[in-house]
């Protein structure tokens, strides 16, 4: 057991890690949704600093666009809803539950820390193997090679999860998605300036992903953000709902399955790519995935942001009465 000394560690790293831990605790401990959401957004921002420290620019881009961007928009958008009053728990019982939770958490952490303390400083064998095989993958960026070639089954299943989430969310709130009718001149100008820039950025991220950080996930997240902004600025065509959006979302999944079938027919292995056409296949499937992910995220946002105005007004009016009754 080595003595823990912080001499090897940069003071700034310690500060950022401490801030990350504190915001994590705040995000789970603040009882009001608004406070918890803000703490969580700060937590995500600070994490992005750490991604730079562990040499993960791809993750940083995706986190900025998705974790802080789309997920943040989803959570902030949920804030306008009235937080339902929690039934009062017996104070002693609440303390007991928290104590048991903290104790079990401490045991779990101790177990995890024991495992981590026994890890070697040597990287796993898989990393060098993957880096070595990059030149046979059709693309030169290792992470894109892993995502779209070596482990493209993961990516296929991931896109399936995204499709199911989008379809499920749309089904749950089909009739309540509102269109923005009068966005006003400012938002119209914002749409004209920002949306084309975001679409261009998405296209660049997509193509750049074959040789440097970027790729379908980041491009899809940016495209999703562009669609959400366009929708909020009253662009009718950007409304990601209904059959048209569904076709675009499902197309990515179906094309990926088709690619797997082509791999089986040509190379004899499901989802395998032959080097002669791997680049073309990866770039085409990434293009479809970008559209799929972007539209799916916009669908999720619209479904989550949809609201039944009449019911909301009713419940707001009923709230004081309920408070009095309780």
């Amino acid at each position, binding site marked *: 057991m080595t003595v*823990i000394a912080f001499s*090897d*560690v940069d003071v700034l*790293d*310690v500060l950022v*890690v401490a801030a*990350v*831990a504190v915001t994590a*605790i705040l*995000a*789970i401990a603040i*009882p009001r*949704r608004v406070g918890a*959401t803000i703490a969580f957004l700060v*937590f995500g921002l600070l994490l992005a600093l*750490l991604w730079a*420290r*562990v*040499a*993960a620019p*791809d*993750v940083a881009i*995706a986190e900025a666009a*998705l*974790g802080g961007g789309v*997920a943040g928009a*989803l*959570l902030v958008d*949920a804030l306008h809803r009235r*937080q*339902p009053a929690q039934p009062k728990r017996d104070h002693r019982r609440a303390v007991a539950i928290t104590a048991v*939770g*903290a104790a079990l*958490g401490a045991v*779990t*952490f101790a177990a*995890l*820390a024991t495992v981590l303390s026994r890890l070697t*400083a*040597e*990287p796993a064998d898989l*990393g*060098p193997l*993957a880096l070595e095989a990059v030149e046979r993958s059709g693309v030169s960026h290792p*992470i894109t090679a892993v995502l779209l070639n070596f482990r493209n089954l993961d990516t296929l299943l*991931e896109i399936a*999860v*995204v499709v199911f*989430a989008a379809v*499920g969310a749309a089904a*749950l*709130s089909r009739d309540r998605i509102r269109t923005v009718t009068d966005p006003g001149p400012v938002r119209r100008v914002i749409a004209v300036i920002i949306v084309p820039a975001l679409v261009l950025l998405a296209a660049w991220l997509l193509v750049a992903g074959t040789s440097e950080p970027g790729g379908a*996930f980041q491009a899809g*997240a940016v495209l999703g953000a562009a669609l959400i902004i366009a929708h909020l600025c009253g662009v009718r065509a950007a409304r990601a709902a209904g059959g048209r959006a569904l076709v675009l979302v499902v197309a990515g999944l179906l094309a990926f399955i088709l690619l797997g079938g082509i791999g089986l027919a040509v190379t004899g292995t499901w989802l395998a790519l032959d080097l002669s056409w791997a680049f073309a296949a990866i770039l085409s499937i990434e293009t479809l995935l970008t559209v799929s*992910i972007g539209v799916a995220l916009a669908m999720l946002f619209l*479904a*989550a942001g949809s609201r*039944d105005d009449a*019911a909301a007004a009713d419940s707001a009016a*009923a709230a004081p009465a309920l408070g009095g009754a309780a």
Partner: protein
Amino acid sequence: MTTLQLFMYAGAFILVVGVAATLLVRDLIRRLIALNVASGGVMLLWLALADRGDGEPDPVPQALVLTGIVVMAAVTGIAIVLARRVEQLDDDLEEVEQ
């Protein structure tokens, strides 16, 4: 203690805190935030593991973390829709009881 160990232990701590809160918090949106915090811990832990050694970081965990971010965003989206549905049904139920 090296920087990477610091990141790994911090990741494990955030994971545990997030999972515990996901199980204990009753407000649905706060529970969802706790789940997102837990996933942040997993990401930190795994990216630190990927960056062991002197050379290029291991692309496999990084790719899986990327997949995880997209899946987590999708999960957050549908969970918010479901949470709203549950709360609306609760509201309706209260109105009926009155």
